[in-house]
């Protein structure tokens, strides 16, 4: 379970930061706590257009959005929550959408005095429970660490055993709350609302049928990852491929194009989508280095059989393996093989460019493979298409 722990002040030194760092250490077996700072954020400005929001704001929002729950450690200034923390929360709920919606949240605080930020904590809960934020605020537990200078030792550990016990009990309860809320499935929600749902089914294609499970696992198995922006410009789906180049999170599903891209990347993304919509382009590609390897990103217009626009798919994968195959002469062999199969040698000679060569190649061997499979089926000694395909090699 992953938590974002927000240091509720922009001050250089704060016991509230030390408390979160202590929680990160102390609960490392139980949860992955990521301590987030707010001092890099600009002051909230509701007049600022979304496109001009800074990268710091975007990164902060991403970190909160992709956490299973959020912990606020809040100092108290003038009997209230610090302005810098109000500002950070304003960024979280304001534009383009509230990302605290239904987010499990916990409030903790440390002060030098004995009141231990009790007033400021109540305000944070009030703010989080407002319709603007509508977070799932943990109730019934309070982490109020007073007399900070005596409560922590120089290594940043809490010395008061009663305070540690209370923190453990409160955090364990928060983990349970977060777990319970995350396990609520779409089906649970539908059942609650007395709506029917499909549990398992097949998708019938003109070329055969796939179970939902097979469809999912195919997308997880192929070496390229796929993301889909639907026709309404919403991020609709991504393939659950291990070790993705672009790390996506289910919390991003159903976000608009505007929401799921950093503001500065938006104009380029929108230009691509618009060119797919107006039909001026069908594919855009970007070869680049990602995570230290050569990667190809291709954007395709996803079109219905009648040509109408269904969405944009982003097709991304490392091409190191393909390049190394090429460098070891792999495609030279295939070309030779194909010309062996082909009756017309001129065809393979004219395929000078890689694209047409590839389309020529897919033309011939695929048919062969299908034939091979059909033959194998007839012979009833080999029903595995993969084997017959490798025979072709």
């Amino acid at each position, binding site marked *: 379970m992953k938590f974002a722990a927000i240091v509720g002040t*922009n*001050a*250089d030194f704060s016991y509230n930061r030390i408390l979160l760092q202590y929680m990160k250490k102390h609960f490392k077996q139980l949860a992955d706590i990521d301590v987030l700072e707010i*001092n890099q954020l*600009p*002051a*909230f*400005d*509701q*007049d600022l257009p979304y496109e001009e929001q800074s990268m710091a704001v975007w990164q902060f929002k991403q970190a909160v959005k992709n956490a299973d729950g959020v912990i606020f450690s809040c100092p108290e*200034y*003038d*009997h*209230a*929550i*610090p*302005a*810098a923390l*109000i*500002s950070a*929360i*304003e960024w979280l*709920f*304001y534009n383009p959408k509230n990302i605290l919606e239904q987010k499990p949240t916990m409030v903790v605080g440390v002060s030098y005095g004995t009141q231990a930020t009790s*007033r400021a904590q109540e*305000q944070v809960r*009030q*703010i989080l*429970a*407002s319709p*603007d*934020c509508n977070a799932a605020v943990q109730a019934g537990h309070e982490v109020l660490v007073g007399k900070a200078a005596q409560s922590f030792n120089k290594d940043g550990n809490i010395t008061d055993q009663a305070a540690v016990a209370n923190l453990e009990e409160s955090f364990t309860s928060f983990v349970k709350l977060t777990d319970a809320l995350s396990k609520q499935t779409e089906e649970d929600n539908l059942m609650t609302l007395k709506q029917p749902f499909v549990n398992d089914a097949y998708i019938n294609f003109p070329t055969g049928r796939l179970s939902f499970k097979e469809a999912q696992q195919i997308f997880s198995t192929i070496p390229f990852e796929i993301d889909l922006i639907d026709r309404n410009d919403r991020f609709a789906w991504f393939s659950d491929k291990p070790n993705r180049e672009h790390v996506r999170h289910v919390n991003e599903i159903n976000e608009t194009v505007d929401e799921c891209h950093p503001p500065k990347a938006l104009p380029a993304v929108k230009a691509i989508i618009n060119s797919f919509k107006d039909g001026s382009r069908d594919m855009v590609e970007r070869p680049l280095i990602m995570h230290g390897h050569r990667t190809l990103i291709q954007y395709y217009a996803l079109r219905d059989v009648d040509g109408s626009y269904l969405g944009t798919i982003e097709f991304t994968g490392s091409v190191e393996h393909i390049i190394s195959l090429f460098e070891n002469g792999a495609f030279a062999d295939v070309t030779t093989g194909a010309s062996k199969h082909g009756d017309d040698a001129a065809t393979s000679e004219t395929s000078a460019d890689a694209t047409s060569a590839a389309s020529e190649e897919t033309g011939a061997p695929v048919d062969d493979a299908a034939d091979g499979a059909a033959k194998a089926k007839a012979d009833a000694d080999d029903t595995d298409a993969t084997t017959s395909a490798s025979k072709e090699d």
Partner: protein
Amino acid sequence: MKITAIVGSNSKHSANRKLLQFMSRHFDDQDITVADIDQVPMFNENYPGGDPQPVIDLAQQIEQSNAVIISCAEHAHTVASSLKSVLEWLSYNLHPFANKPVMIVSVSSFPQGGSRAQMTLRQILNSPGVNAIAWQGDEFLLGNGDTAFNDHGDVKDEGTVKFLDKCFAEFITFAERNNAK
């Protein structure tokens, strides 16, 4: 009486600015100056070079006033961070609010008119760091702020203006009684 009227939001489109501008015109027997806070940076106790100039200027303006009006916006059931930041600056090195009579008013787009932000603001003004004398009694909460003003920026509803007159008169009496100057 010299009054500083603080716009409790850094937004260019705040209806709270409209309300204060209306009050400064409407109550022309008093010397009301509307003060914007959009030049005040986010409070930071480690801010390089001490208090920034807009904070020093605002503090001086409040010091020289007999009373203060704050019109507060409400976001997520609390005051805007920009207003809270100003109050933090003015309770840090400088304390111009100390024993200063303060009237709280608010406008919001919703019917409640910022009631929760007013409660929070009152609590902050009463804290030992700020130590203002917040006037209490009637509460001026202007709801549906988007439609409450006419094209000249005047509050449309006569009953509302009458109630504002009553609140303001009570506040002036309170401020006179509590004024050291």
